[in-house]
């Protein structure tokens, strides 16, 4: 009985740790400034899009998934286009970099 309780406690602890690590991994927010090299959006009714940004510091290409309505609208009417420099914050969710902040650095 004691052994079973111990096994159960260890298993529970392991599960809690694993869950916590998953949550931590998901919640770590990353940010970069980069130039858009490619925008992929499937027509005017699209509810998601991807943009590839070239990180200005590392020059690495980072693929970002964009789901927010305002940014999608800016892709659709070309207020944001390839070549624009973007300030982006994103989180890794299920292996994808999902944007929660995607704004042009340029102004007037």
């Amino acid at each position, binding site marked *: 009985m004691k052994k079973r309780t111990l096994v159960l406690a260890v298993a529970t602890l392991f599960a809690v740790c694993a869950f916590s690590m998953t949550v931590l991994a998901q919640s770590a927010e990353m940010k970069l*400034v980069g*130039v858009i090299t490619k925008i992929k959006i499937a027509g005017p009714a699209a509810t998601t899009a991807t943009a590839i940004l070239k990180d*200005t510091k590392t020059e690495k290409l980072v693929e970002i998934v964009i789901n927010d309505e*305002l940014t999608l*609208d800016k892709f659709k*009417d*070309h*207020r944001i*286009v390839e070549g624009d*420099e973007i300030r982006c914050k994103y989180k890794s969710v299920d292996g994808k970099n999902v944007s929660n902040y995607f*704004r*042009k*650095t*340029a*102004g*007037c």
Partner: protein
Amino acid sequence: MKIRGLLMALALASLATAPGLAEEHPGRASIEASGYNGPSTCEECHPGKAKELLSTVHWKHASPVTNVDGLDAEKEYGMFNRIYTMCNGNDVVNNLKEIPVNPETGKSKFTGCNTCHPGNHLSDVGSTGPEAENAIDCLVCHSSAYDFTKRVPFKDGKGQVVMGQDRSTAAALAVGRPAAKNCMVCHERAGGGIYVKRGFEFTRENDVHAAMGMTCVDCHKAQNHKLPTGFDPNTWANDGLRVACSDCHGAEPHADQDYNRHTAKLACQTCHIPRTGGTMAKDFTRWEQGADKFYEPGTIQAEANSTKPVYAWYNLRVRNTPHFIGPDGSRNDGTSKIYPFKVYQGKAFFDKKSGQLLSMDFAPPMATGDVLAGVASAASTLGIKDYEPTPGWQTLYFGSSHLVTKENALTCFQCHTVGGALNFKDLGYSDAEVAKLTNPETYVTKVLEKQKEEW
């Protein structure tokens, strides 16, 4: 109050179904048959509208200004000719142009304050006559299908810089009342970047009016293309029309009379706009090089909606000195109310001889980082020959009239507590008055009753 609420709900419901961008605009067959030929197509059904627009602030970027200290009553002021440290330039010194090439990349680019002007740049800010009327970009404000790849500057065959326009039939077939996005094309990126200047996002999550499906022009209701505005101490130009919360909400907007009593001394924004954000400071004496090797003024930016406002008495007149532009007013002048402001501080060059702020042409520093070349170029444009540039700071108070919340509005104990939202001492109250104002005695019964109701 209930009746007013019902009327408001009905009005909003009718707005949701009113002819807007999503609904078909009359004249479709004509546009499909003849194509879109610029304002002359619009004028077929809306005669006189092009000429009308030429007299507005959107076209002139200036107007007579009557509530700001030290201005010439005979002149017009606005983005066309103003100098302050949010922009440090204006349409005159920073006219849209191709900047000198960057020595590291050999590349140039187009830039200028008037890139948002709804003309074609050949007919520019304040221009008049038939050519100007025909240059108006009606669709950038009125179409929901505008293709912004076409609204970019380019050089024509004569070497003149032209601002492109989308005059396609597709864009013309999507005309209607301006949606928020039409306004935000320019207004969200004023001052050098997205949400830099006033630092608010007009979105469903952040503004109760946006959440109800309202758009900018539901409050800023245009009359003959003139748009009513508020009294932001740093928005000088106006079309002579004003907008206020009380236009819709009346003088006694609350069911609770204790709250209504506050409206004698507090602007609505004070309780209902508890956040601000955006750029807090810029340094025009120091430009930072970006990844593209061009330079931008050093900018310290808080996130939109992320900072606390500063509160001050404001009688709707503006104190305007070289080192301060902000609200005039006091507790005792009989007309002031307490308003929330976003405080911004900008560093730029002042003329040691006159004490006045100097302007800067951005083209030289953007290309090479040479800020004094920018000052020299602006001085040359403005005919200033004898000056001595010296760095200094200017403090600006920006009005805070968007980002309205009902749910998160300030309540009794958020102000009437020690260390609360309002600094009563700074607002001119005596120690004895502050002690009384921050004692729960004034609201304890009311809040306890409210807690019972809520829980």
